[in-house]
C-alpha cells in the first residue's frame, strides 16, 4: 500500500495499463504538455510520447467518435473529456454509437473505450461548469458508469475499465482529486464492477452514496454518532451501472431506513432509481419512506452562498435521518 492522492492513483492506473498493453493509448484536450486540466496525465507524455498521449483539438464529438473508431479497429483508447459538462456536446457519440454498436450489430463489434471526465460543482464555476451527470449516463443500456470515492478504488476500477470490452464512463469528482488514501501497489489489483463497498457499519440507518456524496454520508454518520447516538451503514456504490442493489437491500433490511445522497438534481435523478428499487425489494422492512438528499433543482448559481445552498451537505443528510425517526 502507498498513500497517494486521487489524481496520482488515476495516473498510476493509466500508466500501468499503458505499460501492460500496447493497445492502450490516451487522447484528450491538453492531456499532453499541459498535463491535463486536473493534472491526471502529468508526465505521461514524456514517458510514452505524443502518439500514445495525444493532444486533441477542442472537438469532443470528434475525439470521442475517433475513440469509438479506434476501439472498433482493435485499440483500447482512453478519451479524457476535460469535464463532464463538455460531454454534452459528445453525447451523440457516447449514446448513439459507443453504447449501442455491440447490440445493434448483433454482437459483431464491441467498443472497448474508456471515457474519463471530471464532475461536480462547488467551485463557483457557474451553471455551465458545475454539472453532475452520473445518473444521466447510467440511464443508457450498454454503458458502465464508474464513480469512485477513494484513491484505492479509483486505481482498481480504472485498471478494470481498461480491461472491459465495452464502453466505460469513468467519472471523477473534482473535489476529490486531492483526497488522499491507501492505494494497493499490486499492478494486478482490480476492483470489480457492480460491487458496492460498505465503508462504515451501523444499525439505525443506511446512507447510500457514490463519488463525492460518499464523503458526505461518512461525515453525516460521524455527526449522527457524536450528536445523536445513532449509527449508520454507509454504502459506497462505486459503480452505478452495473448497480449492486443487493448490498443496499441487505443493509436496509437490517436498518429499516435509507437515505440516498447525490450531487445531481433531485428531480428525475439517480437517487430516485435507488429509492424505487428499495421500495420494490424491501418495502416491508421500511420504517419510513426512503429519503433523497440531492442537489436543488436549479441551474448552479455563481454566488458562493447560493451555490452552497444548492448542493447537498452532511447537515442535510443528518436532518433527513432525524426526520425519519
Amino acid at each position, binding site marked *: 500500500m502507498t498513500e497517494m492522492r486521487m489524481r496520482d492513483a488515476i495516473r498510476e492506473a493509466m500508466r500501468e495499463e499503458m505499460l501492460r498493453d500496447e493497445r492502450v493509448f490516451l487522447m484528450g484536450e491538453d492531456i499532453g504538455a499541459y498535463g491535463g486540466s486536473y493534472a491526471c496525465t502529468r508526465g505521461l507524455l514524456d514517458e510514452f510520447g505524443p502518439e500514445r498521449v495525444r493532444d486533441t483539438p477542442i472537438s469532443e464529438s*470528434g475525439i470521442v*467518435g475517433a475513440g469509438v*473508431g479506434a476501439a*472498433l*479497429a482493435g485499440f483500447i483508447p482512453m478519451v479524457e473529456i476535460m469535464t463532464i459538462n463538455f460531454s454534452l456536446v459528445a453525447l451523440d457519440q457516447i449514446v448513439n454509437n459507443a453504447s449501442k454498436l455491440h*447490440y445493434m*450489430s448483433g454482437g459483431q463489434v464491441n467498443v472497448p473505450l474508456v471515457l474519463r471526465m471530471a464532475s461536480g460543482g462547488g467551485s463557483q464555476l457557474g451553471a455551465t461548469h458545475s454539472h453532475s451527470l452520473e445518473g444521466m449516463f447510467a440511464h443508457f443500456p450498454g454503458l458502465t458508469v464508474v464513480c469512485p470515492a477513494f484513491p484505492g478504488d479509483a486505481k482498481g476500477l480504472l485498471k478494470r475499465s481498461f480491461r*472491459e470490452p465495452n464502453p466505460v464512463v469513468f467519472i471523477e469528482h473534482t473535489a476529490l482529486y486531492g483526497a488522499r488514501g491507501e492505494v494497493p501497489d499490486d499492478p494486478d489489483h482490480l476492483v470489480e464492477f457492480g460491487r458496492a463497498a460498505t465503508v462504515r457499519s451501523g444499525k439505525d440507518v443506511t446512507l447510500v452514496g457514490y463519488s463525492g456524496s460518499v464523503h458526505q454520508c461518512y461525515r453525516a454518520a460521524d455527526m449522527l454518532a457524536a450528536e445523536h447516538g445513532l449509527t449508520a451503514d454507509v454504502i459506497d456504490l462505486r459503480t452505478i451501472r452495473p448497480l449492486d442493489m443487493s448490498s443496499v437491500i441487505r443493509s436496509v433490511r437490517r436498518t429499516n431506513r435509507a437515505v440516498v445522497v447525490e450531487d445531481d438534481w433531485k428531480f428525475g435523478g439517480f437517487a430516485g432509481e435507488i429509492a424505487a428499487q428499495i421500495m420494490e425489494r424491501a418495502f416491508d422492512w421500511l420504517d419510513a419512506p426512503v429519503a433523497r438528499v440531492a442537489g436543488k433543482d436549479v441551474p448552479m448559481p455563481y454566488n458562493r452562498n447560493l451555490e452552497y445552498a444548492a448542493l447537498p451537505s452532511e447537515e442535510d443528510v443528518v436532518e433527513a435521518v432525524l426526520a425519519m425517526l
Partner: protein
Amino acid sequence: MSVGQAIPTIVGEPPDGDLQQRFLYEMLLIRRFEEKCAEMYTRGKIRGFLHLYTGEEACAVGAINALRADDKIVTHYRDHGHALARGVEANRIMAELFARVGGTNQGRGGSMHIFDVDRNFLGGYAIVAGHMPIAAGLGLAANLSGEDWAALCIFGDGGVGEGEFHEALNLAAIWKLPVVWFCENNGYGMGVPFDDSLANDVYKIAASYQMPSVRIDGMDVLEVYSATQLALAHVREGNGPYFIEALTYRYRGHSMADPELYRTKAEVEEYRKRDAIQRLKRSMTADGLMDEASYEALVAQVDAEVDEAVAYADASPEPGLHTLYDHITKEYEGDSG
C-alpha cells in the same frame, strides 16, 4: 466535372473487361435488390425506415471496388448498395430487412444499420454524419498500427452541415489520417436541395481542410472507380485524407414515406437519362464487351439472386424473445490481456 485541388485521371490499369462486367453485375444487383425491397415494403415484409439507393449504384460499386479487403468502410443509413458492393450476401441483407435471425445483425439492426465485420463493413449509421468521427478513429488506428489499410467513409450531402463532419475532417487533416471521405451528393437532404443548406460547394468546403478535394460524376462508375483508386493511393502513402464529392441522384423518394412534393417528375426523368447502368452497358457494347443477349442473361442471374434472397429471408426465423437481452454488452472474460 469541376475540380478542387487535384484532378482525377485514370490511374493504374483501366478496368479490364472482367472488372467492367463485375461493375455491371453489381450495379444491376443493387438496382433489382432495391426494387424488390420496395415491393417487400409495400407487402409489409420490411418495416421501419427504408431508404433506397436506385440511381446511385455507380458510387457504391466504383468506390468500394477500389478498396482492398483489409480496408474498412463506414457508411450512412442508405447502405444496402454499399453492403452488396462489398460482397455481403444479398440473402443476409434481405433477412436483416425482414428482421430475421439469418440477417447480418440477427434482426437487431435493420435497414439503416447493416454490419458485416468479416468484410470490414463496420456499419450503416443513421445519425447524419455521426459515423464521420468513427472514420477518423479508424484512420488513427491504421496509423498507430503501422499498417497501410485505409478507411472509406461514405455519407450524404446533408452531412456537410453537421458539426461532426467538420470535426472529423479537421482531425483527419491535422493527424494525416488515411481516410477517403466520399460524399454522395444526390442533390437533396430529404427534401431540401443542398445549395439551400450549404454556404459553399461541398468539395470546396472540404478543400479548406487542406486535403485534395474533387468533384466527380457519381453516375459514371469508371470515373468513380478511378477517382477512388487515386484517393486510396494518396492516403496509403501517408499523405493524409482525400475528399471526393460524387454528384449523383436518387430515383426514388428519400424513404418509402416520402411523397416527393419538392421535385418534379420531369427532373427525375432527366437524371434517368444519365443512368449509370445504361451508360456502362452502352460503352461496354461499343467496346465489344457486351451484347443484348449477355445483358439479358445478367439481368436474369441477378433477378434469380434477388428472388433467392427473398426466399432465404422468408424462411429464416424471427429472433426468440428470450434473446432480447443478448449483446447489450460483450462478456468480460477476465484478464486475458
